[in-house]
């Protein structure tokens, strides 16, 4: 799967965000080793679209989101947002793009400063950029707080007086206050109770409609991503496996890893025993020494010699469905991962 390639990208003119050959590496201490967090990932998003990025922990999905924000900037690759190449910008020029490109984080508690009031937190973006006078800023803060379902009368309180779900609403308010066009949601519901998750997902949909947003939605929960995304990108160990519309992806996954992820979604019926033959065994390899060729081959029952030598490129298997695999699944085909190896 170690997918690379740009076959899934659409016309550069149509896309709001276009990322090509993104590479992010982190040095490990002074050992000289590097963590290959993101290796040659390309993606694009049309205006008003929601792109879901899924994958297990450590697959580089959050790193991809942060690299788009240039926090920190990627090692190589280009990020073009709204016609501006962010990767070529530095200092003030890069800072000037900030209010139009925002981010929502996973941990609603950690992403709000415990020592500041909610009003200060939400108003910060307006204060930084000197947008409007004081009265206009406060009015704007009231407006977005109301839009996310927080009573502006409580805006004088500090984050610890709110629940996790409410804190995430405040984070959303902070992200939309400078009226960005693109928001990167980094696992925005993963830390929340299931009942609250649905509320936050609905709220994001509302915000999208109300403020004309385009979203990148990062999650490890396929069920969550399916409901909100127009397009889903599956990642594994810093590479792209498969890109498709959610319905096609869920109905007929072409990549063995996608199939494994789908098989791992629990069935809400205690009588149903999980089918262990369809559950992926083994551990994710170390990103410091990723496998050659296709990075998924060490866990893939279909892997052959070619997978170790030749890295698969993304290619279309159906209309709008792209997969990086030498031996993709055909529609209706299931895959047997065999007895659980340790």
């Amino acid at each position, binding site marked *: 799967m170690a997918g690379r390639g740009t076959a899934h990208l659409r016309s550069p003119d149509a896309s709001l965000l276009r990322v090509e050959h993104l590479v992010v590496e982190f040095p490990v201490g002074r050992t000289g080793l590097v963590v290959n967090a993101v290796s040659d990932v390309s993606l694009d998003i049309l205006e008003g679209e929601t792109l879901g990025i899924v994958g297990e922990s450590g697959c580089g999905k959050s790193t991809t989101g942060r690299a788009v924000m240039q926090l920190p900037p990627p090692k190589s690759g280009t990020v073009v947002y709204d016609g501006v190449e962010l990767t070529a910008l530095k200092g003030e020029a890069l800072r000037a793009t900030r209010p139009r490109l925002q981010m929502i*984080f996973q941990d609603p508690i950690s992403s709000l400063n415990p020592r500041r009031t909610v009003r200060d937190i939400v108003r910060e*973006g307006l204060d930084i950029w000197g947008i409007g006078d004081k009265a206009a800023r406060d009015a704007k803060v009231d407006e977005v707080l109301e839009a996310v379902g927080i009573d502006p009368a409580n805006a004088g309180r500090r984050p610890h007086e709110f629940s996790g779900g409410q804190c995430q609403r405040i984070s959303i308010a*902070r992200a939309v206050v400078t009226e960005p066009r693109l928001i990167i949601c980094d696992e925005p519901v993963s830390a929340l109770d299931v009942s*609250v998750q649905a509320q936050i997902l609905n*709220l994001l949909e509302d915000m999208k409609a109300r403020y004309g947003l385009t979203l990148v939605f990062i999650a490890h929960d396929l069920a969550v991503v399916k409901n909100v995304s127009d397009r889903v990108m599956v990642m594994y160990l810093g590479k792209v496996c498969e890109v498709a519309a959610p319905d096609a992806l869920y109905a007929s996954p072409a990549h063995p890893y996608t199939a494994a992820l789908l098989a791992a979604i629990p069935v809400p019926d205690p009588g149903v025993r999980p089918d262990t033959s369809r559950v992926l065994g083994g551990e994710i390899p170390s990103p410091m020494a990723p496998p050659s060729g296709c990075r998924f081959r060490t866990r893939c029952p279909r892997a052959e010699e070619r997978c170790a030598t030749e890295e698969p490129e993304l290619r279309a298997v159906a209309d709008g469905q792209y997969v990086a695999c030498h031996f993709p699944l055909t529609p209706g085909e299931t895959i047997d991962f065999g007895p659980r190896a340790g």
Partner: protein
Amino acid sequence: MPEPTPDAVPPVGADGNRDLDRYAEGSLEPGLVVAQANLYVSAVESGGEGRRRVGRGLGVGAWLAIGWLAFIVIVAVLAQLGVLPLKDPNRSYVACARRGPFSTDGTASGFLLGCDSNGRDMIARLAYGSWSSLIVATGAVLFGLVFGGTFGLIAGYFGRRTDAVITSLFNVFLAIPAVVLALALVAFLAGAAASTGQSSVDPKLILILAIGIVSIPLLGRITRASALSWSQREFVLAARAQGAKPVRIMLREVLPNVLPAMFSIALLGIAVAIVAEGTLSILGVGVRPPTPSWGNIIGLDRGRLKESPHIIFLPALMIFFTVLSLNFLGDVVRARLDVRESAV
């Protein structure tokens, strides 16, 4: 379970209220709602005002410490203002020299805590001395906080090479014995003041500078450690994503969270500085006699421990109780401010 449509969302976004709304729609089990409502109520009770009360009793020890410190500070200020009915701390009553406390001897009956070897009233010396000791210790720690705090904040926020450089500077400073460094600094600063013709520079100022400089790495390292951990929080990343500049982030996002740690260590620092002032005074480079400080009262009569122990022990007790109170209070402050974090 039907999710409330956006229009049905009450403007008050309490998730608990929403559950009640869903119960009203018949989409939630009654028992569940009661349980959730109870949880909600107890959450409300333990939040806000309630949270401040629960487990927040200060305890007798802390109040004793606060009481002692308040007493010392008030005495020091009032003595300095001259409103206390004290004897002149520099006047010698030769007949009473080395008289112990609670003496019933006619000539010394006015001296409740006795006199030093020059016949000066111990109470007056201690009261005026507390001003010198406190002003030097507080000034030194404030000096250390401003500079150590600034460097620590910068090191902790920027990390990497900036951190490496500043931390190694701190370590170099820490490797020099504090008292020796302070001694050298006092000698150097006094010499520098004299050579520029400013012989009237208050020796207390020199002491503040010397002890303050020594305290920079200590306070700086605490600040750096705290700033380092807070700088990795996502709200700092969020501030950067919003385009805040480093100085703004350091002052608005990181510093307010680091201040409790700085405050708590500052209380301990004042205690250490009081001892340091005493040490330097005993070594003869502290507050210059005849102006009293707790340290130089001990220093002047350090040879008379056997014959007149009260001259040594009374200022030592003042230092002891003050340092104890500050240490105790420093721990209490740290523990209490940590609660806020864990409650979040």
